[in-house]
């Protein structure tokens, strides 16, 4: 009998815990608390019950510039029910400042907060590599989409598919997200060099 018990304990030990890094589709989104350009704090947890769109951004990146000239983000957000969807821009650029974000926000004329992540901690927790890099988090705080804003890296397509819009619409409609991971495109996130 001893053998049995030993084996049983061994069996229990063999059941190992999986380790995860980065924000993964289907997994709970990494928690964060960041200040926006006006100094107001935002935590992911406070938006539980709503669909949260995270947009990694950097106003200096040509891809971001192109999308803001075309109003891609504003038009995407406009299509959503404001009561159910929260849009947060996150800037993990090492040399970004709240003042730069505030000036950019003013010149582009949008209203959602620009979260300040100059340390890059949150960006790295999510594995954000490019600007723009988009994440959609469902009402329960689970990542449901990670990747590009659309399927048109070069900005030349007439019939582009807006992946974020597709994902949020699917979530609000209670349907599975059709393409839950895509390859993001754009500039690399200019993280602070590790000291």
């Amino acid at each position, binding site marked *: 009998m001893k053998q049995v018990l030993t*084996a049983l*304990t061994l*069996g*229990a030990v063999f*059941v190992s815990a999986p380790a995860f890094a980065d924000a993964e589709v289907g997994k709970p989104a990494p928690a964060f608390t960041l200040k926006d350009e006006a100094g107001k704090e935002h935590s992911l947890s406070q938006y539980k019950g709503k669909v949260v769109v995270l947009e990694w951004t950097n106003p200096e990146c040509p891809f971001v510039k192109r999308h803001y000239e075309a109003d891609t983000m504003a038009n995407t957000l406009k299509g959503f029910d404001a009561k159910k969807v929260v849009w947060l821009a996150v800037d993990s650029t090492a040399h970004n400042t709240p003042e730069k974000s505030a000036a950019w926000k003013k010149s582009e004329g949008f209203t959602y907060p620009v979260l300040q992540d100059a340390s890059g901690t949150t960006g790295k927790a999510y594995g954000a590599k490019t600007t723009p890099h988009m994440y959609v988090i469902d009402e329960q705080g689970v990542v449901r989409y990670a990747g590009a804003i659309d399927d048109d890296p070069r900005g030349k397509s007439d019939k582009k598919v807006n992946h974020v819009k597709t994902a949020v619409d699917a979530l609000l409609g209670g349907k599975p997200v059709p393409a839950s991971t895509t390859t993001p495109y754009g500039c690399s996130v200019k993280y602070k060099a590790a000291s």
Partner: protein
Amino acid sequence: MKHTVSKRLVAAGGLFLSLLATVAHAALPPSAVASSAPDEGDPRVEAALLVDSTQVKPGDTFRVGVRFRLDPGWHIYWKNPGDSGLETEVDWDTPGSTVGPLQWPFPSTFRTPDGFIVTHGYEGEVLLFADATASAQAQGTLQLSAAVNALVCEVHCIPADMMLTRTIPVGPETLPDAEALPTFDAARARVPRPVEDSGHAVKLELDAKQLTAGQPFAGTFTLTSTRGAALPALEKDFFVPERIPGVDAVRLKEQGPGRFALEGKAEPDVPEAEPRLKGVLRLGTAATGFHALAVDVPLAPVVAAVGVGPAPVVAKAPSIKDSLAAVKPAAPAAPAAASAGSSMGLGMALLFAFLGGALLNLMPCVFPVLALKAYGFTRMVKQEQGRVGAHAAAYAGGIVGSMLLLAGAVLAVRAGGASVGWGFQFQEPLFVATVSAVLVVFALNLFGVFTVGLDGTSLAGRVDQSHGLLHSAGEGVLAVVLATPCSAPLLGTAVGFAFAAGPFTVLAVFTALGLGLALPFCVLVLVPGLAKRLPKPGAWMERFKQVLGFALLGTTVWLVWVMGGLAGVDGMARVLAFLVAVGLGTWVYGQAQTQEGGRRWASLAAAAAVLVGAGVVTLRFDDAAPAAARASSSVAQAQPWSDEAVAAALAAGQPVFVDFTADWCLTCKFNERTVLSREEVRAAFTEHQVAFFVADWTRRDARITARLAEHGRAGVPMYLVLSPGAADKPEVLPELLTVDSVVDAVKRASACSPTNRTDGSKVLCAAGLPKP
């Protein structure tokens, strides 16, 4: 080319430089050169359209390419840019000739200082070229145009758009361009060649036979020289993967000459086709010179591959009559046990656990032990009446004690951050092997091969006296060990509740479970008249005992089959070899019991040696992946389960039936044989186009454990029926299926499908209609 340029630059003076640049471009018309990516007015990249011939004969092949020259520190991107960036794009427009695919020299790898972002591309100078063929009817001149779109990055990035054009005369001969030819040849030398053409062979062995969506994978990649030559040394960044759909984070780590550890991760979105490992491998060093190989080998099928059939073309709009017929309250099909979920109270959970434990006695796994116990009891009642109560207590103690141990193991594992489920220990080959051995030893004991617990010299005629208190307790432990794979009705909910609750609840529920399991035997003891009704002991008992031995061997057969699922045919062979050794060791031990002195000790040592030796040699189990179809063999058209596959089937408008099962779960097997493989069920599945998924929990699978927990379960079986019209509200069927309950559930799910596929918002649910 890079070398030639730098040599020239060194040889030439500063003044000479601009002159030289002019000379290099002398042959090029202005339209074939452009610069772009202006950075504060200073262009960062200069591109030139090069052709390796000054004149082309109709029908001949020549080469065209775009040469990029970048400012120091700036780079453009390879076809897989890596974590960020953008593939460099060259669009050809060449009336009168056709241009083949772009050839990419081996790229450099760039990293941010912290190594977080890794990209692939070119700095300094590079020629991206292609083979072109002049049309046989070509006349006059060939027009060549290239639209170049590149992202040029240093720390920041600037998109570059350039249009390059030039013409080449068509003539009676193809004349090479002596100026451009070396540039093309140098670029050609850096382009990876197919592995076979380079005198090498590659082999890829993955640790698992399949990739699981969202999960990392690993394997071994070997490179050998088919010509017997030694493999050259490698330099950093020797492997650059292409972008592989559905696969991410592919890396090769050198472990020895030609031997690499492969790492990667399957993305949650999985392509239907089997992914291939594609990339380029650069052999050699800067000192010895490089040559690059193009790797392209199949990776492995992905478990979550969506295998659902084509969506039904026309969704049948249910008539009112059909809909009404389908409306049946869901409750009768799903008793309280199945639907209580985690909202049940502790008292209810304890009751369920107690009743479930009692019912476990009737399950095929525990029944032999109970029979054994009843047999021993029959004898005891007559021979040592005073000790009956003590034996009952010992038996119950053995049961409750091992239940608590199991609860402790669950808590310990849970504290470690992992999730486990009921019967999880049967996912370990070593555990299965040990239990098999114990059963064989028990059986051989019943056959009289050896005796337990008494001095060997006095054994000869006293076999039956072996029934000590410890033995009773041991039988209790065995009952628990064998009971775990049989999740009886009621039990799933109770244990699921416990697993989701605090430590106290876990212990309480497991105790209640143990008491329930011990109940029938205790009833025999506690009800005075009952014991007397048992048959009288006699010669029949010896025979019955031996028959019970065969029942235990039968249980072993099942465990060996479970082992087959865990560790494949090899594992089965190993455990059988081990069992033979156990038999031999036990027999030698039995012989020793009748011997004396030195011979006896020699025999005992021999028995121990046989057991330990055999154990060491045989009990090594590879996690050989079992055939995917194994668990589902009894059910037609079963597909391996994954959340993605289920979602895809629902999106296609199909009702979904998920069978959460395991080889060691007899209840599951019983349901599969008696209900799920029945013609009526199959017909219903076909009629309603049900997608049938099998979630096989025979081996550890955290995804399945999580799904079970979501529905308040800690073990299999569990049956989910999902409707495309209400995907978020699956129906949980009871643990013991009936044909009617399955067919009705499928009908309900089907009746609740979207009625109009193009307008998914129109959903008609039977549940939403008034009841008849």
